[in-house]
Structures are given as structure tokens and as C-alpha cells.
């Protein structure tokens, strides 16, 4: 149980608290929960609530589509660490949240979604704009509920914020029928949250931690494998201290990027399907893998049977169901990354491991990430390197999904947590622009850049209007190859270059941006890349740069589906570029 207020409310007389409408209770409870900004789109049965938001002290952002609103709340949450809030009407409004909720669920992002619902007495009658919102969203939320009694309203909202933000975070949806919005009930004092079926275990078991430390101290060839859980739990500092004290090389998942400074020699960068050769070789040859806030996803492990064949495994995770799901673990530690890493650091000893670090250094020298830097065409990797250089790795980078996402993971040097926002688990094309808007609203002073693919951008580009309306200085860099690049790459490699339905005719993105009221720049020559980036960074308005890049560039290295991590394609291509 969690005490939500320091005052002892049990003695407070409830009779002093005012009677309010459901809509007023919702607004008051959102404010009580610290909500300063929310995202949402009005509609029929949500109107009583929108009426109370008319003069509420909450910064309200209206997207152009509810999916955009949900990704905005997601970007807001990932950039700030706060819980994102999104509000829609019933039926289509609620249905449009589905992709956003599933995205947040897969990547453990704290969200509270409020959806209006038709009148309680109409539920089940196929009423206008009725959908079974809790039924539809049950598998893609951490928890959801429908409020059928005004008495449950305020407590449920408080529980939603608690569930969304604690343990392994995730989206929580509350469905609120319109008659509940207008019903009257007395405000309730803040009390203890009482959820007998929900008790996240923050503190890792001491004996397990001690056993883990002993195993680490004995290891000759360890690898620390850090995932998004480290960032979610704000444990990057603890991770750095731990890696430093125990002297461990660190590899990160896509969502873990930023938790360990990639400029440090101990960084192996990203592992997995498009990870670095040195990370993947190190994983395959290590004798101990220490997983923190990561879940051995299939894009990380490749062929499971031959994944890290010589390794023992320590797995630290707040979610017990992530442990021993894909990989059988020697020492499981259920606990938060922050607490467990802190305790583990006390127990571990420094060990030099010269032979292991020499081997890693040799792999790094032989197989760095490469591309044909001498090409006169605009290489996508070159554009990303230039963005990284111009922003000194300090920008908040958001992406869509596909080749550009992998190149951004590889060629932007990530140094800070909550500065790389990407849809890793669900792989949601169209995430980039709205999430960038959410991140910019959360971090008004930051440089926020959506590095997007042309096809990903096409999916949600209407949100450029939102950026213009709220005068957000976001930047959009389109890595425009005129293809669904990753689909095309797979078709080239595995389907005999039959580029089936993977190329669309794009609009002139710069002209589209201008029509929306943003700045639009087109770059067709390599010599213009640097100056365009400089111009974009100086721009105060939303600014889009359309980089017409080499069309059939591939992401290397690549572990094909069903292959082991060390069986990477593309390493010989690196040699030819050396």
C-alpha cells in the first residue's frame, strides 16, 4: 500500500468536502495527480468533461487524430518521466487510441487514457459511437476499467495513476459513461491505495543480489546488457557506477540507448539484429550476461538455442514474468533497476579482465560501424552523423520505424537517458512526429528532432499542423529514399529483389510543410547537408528537412531471422569500405 498524502486523512471529516459532478471530480483529480499537460480530442459524450476543461489550469493539446494524441502523451512521458494523459470520446475516438496504447504497453510507458462512453443504460445496445472500449483495449493496457458508479470514479482515477507509474509502467485506461460525467458525488479525501492484487517488488532479494555479485566477481568475460528498464527507472547513474566498479563492458538494447554514454570505451553500443559486430561477438563469447531491465526480445537474441552459448545469466527485472520467459536464468533478481544496481554495486569488486577487454578492443578495431563515406550521394548514415555532430549528442531524438530508425540507433552517439525515443517493441511507423511533439511540450527548452522515414512520416504527418498551432520548434529530418526502406531491404535480400508494394509516390515534403505553416527545406546534394542542418537548428518555427538520400542503401550488419548473433551479414561489405 502506498500512502499518497503525508496528512492522516482518516480523521478528516468527509462532510467538509464539496459535492461535485463527475466531470468536475475528474478535472480536480487530474490536477491533484500533478497533471499539467494533457492531450485529447473532443466528441459527443465527452462534452461534459470538455466543458469543465474549458477553464481548468491544464495545458490542453489537441492533435489532429487521436492516435497522434496518444503518441504525444507517450513522447511526453518518455522525455519527462511523468505519466502522460490522453482523453478521447467514445467509439471512434477510443478505437483510434489502440495503436498508441499498444505502443506504450510494449515499451512500458506510463500513460493514463480517459475515454468517454455512451450512457450506462445504452451500453450493449449498439448505440451511436459505442464501442466496447475496455474489451478492445484489455490486452494492450496494463489495466483498464469502466466506471459504472460515480462512487468509484475518484478512487479509480487515483488507482490508474498509481498503476500506470509504478512497477513495470504501462498504459491504464478508464472508460467513463457520460451519465457518470454529469452525476454528482462528494469529493473523497486522499487515502491509501488498496490494491490487494498489485504489489510491485521494488527491492531485490538480498541473497540473490549477493549470489549475483559473487558470480560477477568470478567472471572472466562478462557483458552487462542494459534495456529500457534502466531508463524507465531513472537508474542510468546507478548503471554507470556499477559498470565502473565491476569493470564491465556495456551493451544496450534499442530502448536502452542513452543509459550509458556511448563515447565511453566500455560501451559496446547496441546488440541484436542490427547491433554492432563487437557487441554481438562479445555476447556470443561471454561467460556471464547480466541483464538489467531487458527482456531477451527476439530482435536481440537471434536464434535462441545458440544465443550466448557459453554464458550464465543474471536477470534483474521488476517484472517477474520477463524472467525465464525466453532464456533460462541462473540467478533471477526481481526488483527495480535503481535499487538492485545500487545494492549490487556495494558487493562487486573491480577485476581487470585484460584479455577480455583486449579481445573487445580488437573487434572494435576490425568491425566498426561503417558506410561508404566517400560516396558523392547523400548517404543516410552521413546525414545522421552530421545531425549528431551539429547537436553534440545533446538533442532529444525521436524516430519512426525502419531503416532510418536503425541508422539513428547506430550512427547517433547516444549519451543521455530520455534523449532517444523510439517505438521498439511494437515497431509503430508514424510514432516519430507526434512523439516529438509530446517531447517538445515536456521539454520546451530542448532541441527535439524527429529523424523519420518518408513512409513513417506519411502515416502521421497531419500532426505537423499541431506543431504549427502550438508554435513548437520541433525539427523533422526525413531520410527520404522513396521506399519503405526496411521492407525493400528484406525484399532485396530474401525475396529476390521483388519490391512488392514497397514504394509509394511521395509528395514534396517541403511544400507540404510550408502549406501547414512550417518551414520546409529540400536537400538534394551532399554539399548542402551541413548548412541545411545548421539552418534547421537555428529555426524557431517547426522545420522540416527532406533529405533525398541514396535509395537502396542497406542497414548493416544484419542477423537474418533464425541465425545466431555471430552470423552477421554485411561484415565483408565493411571490409570493402575500409
Amino acid at each position, binding site marked *: 500500500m502506498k500512502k499518497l498524502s503525508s496528512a492522516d486523512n482518516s480523521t478528516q471529516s468527509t462532510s467538509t468536502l464539496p459535492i461535485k459532478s463527475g466531470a468536475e471530480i475528474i478535472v480536480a483529480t487530474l490536477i491533484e495527480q500533478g497533471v499539467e499537460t494533457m492531450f485529447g480530442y473532443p466528441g459527443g459524450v465527452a462534452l461534459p468533461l470538455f466543458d469543465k476543461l474549458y477553464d481548468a489550469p491544464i495545458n490542453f493539446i489537441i492533435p489532429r487524430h487521436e492516435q497522434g494524441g496518444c503518441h504525444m502523451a507517450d513522447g511526453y512521458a518518455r522525455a519527462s518521466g511523468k505519466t502522460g494523459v490522453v482523453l478521447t470520446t467514445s467509439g471512434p475516438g477510443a478505437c483510434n487510441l489502440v495503436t498508441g496504447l499498444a505502443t506504450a504497453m510494449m515499451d512500458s510507458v506510463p500513460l493514463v487514457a480517459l475515454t468517454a462512453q455512451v450512457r450506462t443504460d445504452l451500453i450493449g445496445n449498439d448505440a451511436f459511437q459505442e464501442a466496447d472500449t*475496455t*474489451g478492445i483495449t484489455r*490486452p494492450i493496457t496494463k489495466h483498464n476499467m469502466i466506471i459504472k458508479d460515480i462512487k468509484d470514479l475518484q478512487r479509480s482515477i487515483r488507482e490508474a495513476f498509481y498503476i500506470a507509474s509504478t512497477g513495470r509502467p504501462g498504459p491504464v485506461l478508464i472508460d467513463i459513461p457520460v451519465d457518470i460525467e454529469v452525476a454528482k458525488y462528494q469529493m473523497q479525501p486522499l487515502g491509501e491505495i488498496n490494491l490487494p*492484487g498489485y504489489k510491485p517488488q521494488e527491492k531485490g532479494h538480498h541473497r540473490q543480489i549477493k549470489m549475483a555479485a559473487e558470480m560477477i566477481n568470478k567472471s572472466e568475460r562478462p557483458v552487462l546488457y542494459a534495456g529500457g528498464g534502466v531508463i524507465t527507472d531513472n537508474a542510468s547513474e546507478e548503471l554507470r557506477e556499477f559498470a565502473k566498479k565491476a569493470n564491465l563492458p556495456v551493451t544496450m538494447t534499442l530502448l536502452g540507448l542513452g543509459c550509458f554514454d556511448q563515447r565511453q570505451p566500455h560501451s559496446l553500443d547496441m546488440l541484436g539484429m542490427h547491433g554492432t559486430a563487437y557487441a554481438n561477438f562479445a555476447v556470443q563469447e561471454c561467460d556471464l550476461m547480466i541483464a538489467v531491465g531487458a527482456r531477451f526480445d527476439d530482435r536481440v537474441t537471434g536464434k535462441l538455442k545458440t544465443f550466448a552459448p557459453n554464458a550464465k545469466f543474471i536477470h534483474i527485472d521488476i517484472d517477474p*514474468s520477463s524472467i525465464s520467459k525466453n532464456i533460462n536464468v541462473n540467478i533471477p533478481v526481481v526488483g527495480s533497476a535503481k535499487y538492485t544496481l545500487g545494492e549490487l554495486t556495494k558487493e562487486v569488486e573491480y577485476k581487470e579482465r585484460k584479455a577480455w577487454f583486449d579481445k573487445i578492443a580488437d573487434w572494435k578495431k576490425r568491425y566498426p560501424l561503417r558506410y561508404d563515406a566517400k560516396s558523392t550521394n547523400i548517404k543516410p548514415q552521413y546525414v545522421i552523423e552530421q545531425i549528431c555532430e551539429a547537436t553534440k549528442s545533446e538533442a532529444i531524438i525521436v524516430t519512426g520505424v525502419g531503416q532510418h530508425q536503425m541508422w539513428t540507433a547506430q550512427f547517433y552517439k547516444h549519451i543521455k537517458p530520455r534523449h532517444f525515443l523510439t517505438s521498439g517493441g511494437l515497431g509503430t511507423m508514424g510514432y516519430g512526429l507526434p512523439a516529438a511533439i509530446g517531447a517538445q511540450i515536456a521539454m520546451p527548452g530542448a532541441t527535439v528532432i524527429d529523424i523519420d522515414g518518408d513512409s513513417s512520416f506519411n502515416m502521421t504527418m497531419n500532426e505537423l499542423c499541431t506543431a504549427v498551432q502550438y508554435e513548437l520548434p520541433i525539427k523533422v529530418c526525413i531520410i527520404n529514399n522513396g521506399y519503405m526502406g526496411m521492407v525493400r531491404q528484406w525484399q532485396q535480400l530474401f525475396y529476390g529483389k521483388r519490391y512488392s508494394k514497397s514504394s509509394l509516390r511521395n509528395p514534396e515534403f517541403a511544400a507540404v510543410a510550408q502549406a501547414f505553416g512550417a518551414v520546409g527545406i529540400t536537400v538534394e546534394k551532399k554539399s548542402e547537408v551541413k548548412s541545411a542542418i545548421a539552418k534547421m537548428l537555428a529555426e524557431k518555427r517547426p522545420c522540416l528537412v527532406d533529405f533525398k538520400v541514396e535509395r537502396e542503401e542497406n542497414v548493416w550488419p544484419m542477423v537474418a531471422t533464425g541465425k545466431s548473433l555471430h552470423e552477421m551479414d554485411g561484415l565483408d561489405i565493411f571490409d570493402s569500405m575500409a
Partner: protein
Amino acid sequence: MKHIISTLVQNKPGVLAHVAGMFAARAFNIDSLAVGRTDDPGLSRMTIVVIGDDKVVEQVRKQLAKIIDVVKIQDFSGKEVIARDLMLMNVCTPPEKRAEVLALVEMFKAKVVDIGQKFVMVEFSASEDKIESFIDACRPYGIKNMVRTGTVAMARLSQATGGEE
């Protein structure tokens, strides 16, 4: 292998759908599922029989625990439990066979709850094995129709605290 998992859940709408949906979404195999009230009006008990190896059952337990409205989970694998199914069955009883069927009912300690001209309805509560044997024994006479609950189970009191989470 069959495992009996007993879970206490909050008595709220949607919980059954959530549990059943989770089993489907994660491709777990349910053999039977029985839901009923408990002595606490706020709680229901679901007894779930799952088919799978230990690894699968461990995931089932963990995924159940993740559902907010699931309060407590007991895995009865390897525990001393009393497990019962309830069955109602209409057995064909032409006059010349009626005595034989009634003798079977007597032998199995089942109960006749309704008698018609051509059928008797038998109520039988027993372990799954015994019910299967009874069905086999009745088959030659002709089974008109039957209905079974899923398994419900309880640990013997001396072991009731084992396996709880």
C-alpha cells in the same frame, strides 16, 4: 501434463474476460476453467486446469499475477489436493437395462436425480478419473447427453499454505 491452478480474483466485471483473453493471447492451453463465489463477496475463485510443462506453467502463474485484479495464485502441482468435477448425465435406460444402470450408479456412489420413461439423470461428483470411468461404464447403455463443470480443487488443510504467492 495437467496442472491445477487456483486463483482468487476480485469479483468485478471483465476479470473473467481478462483471464481468458490472456490465455488465448499467450497461446496457453486451458483444459478447464471453473469460476464461483467465495465466502468473501468481493472475491471469486477461478480454478484453472492448464496443460503444459513446468516452464509453461511458471509463465502462466506469472502472467496471471500480472493481472491487477488477480489477488492470489496457488499452483497445486505436486501438492496433496482434493479435486472434484461435477457431472450431470442422461443415460438411456430401457426397462430391461434399468436395474443394471442403477447398480452402476450405486457402485460409483453417484446419485439419480431424475427418472423418465427412457432415461435416468445421474449426478456424479468425483475426481476426474472416476468420472471418466463412470462415463465408460455407462457408454454401452447409451448416453443421451451430459454436462460437466471444470475441476475445482482445494489443498488438504495440513498443506494449504504450500505454493501460495
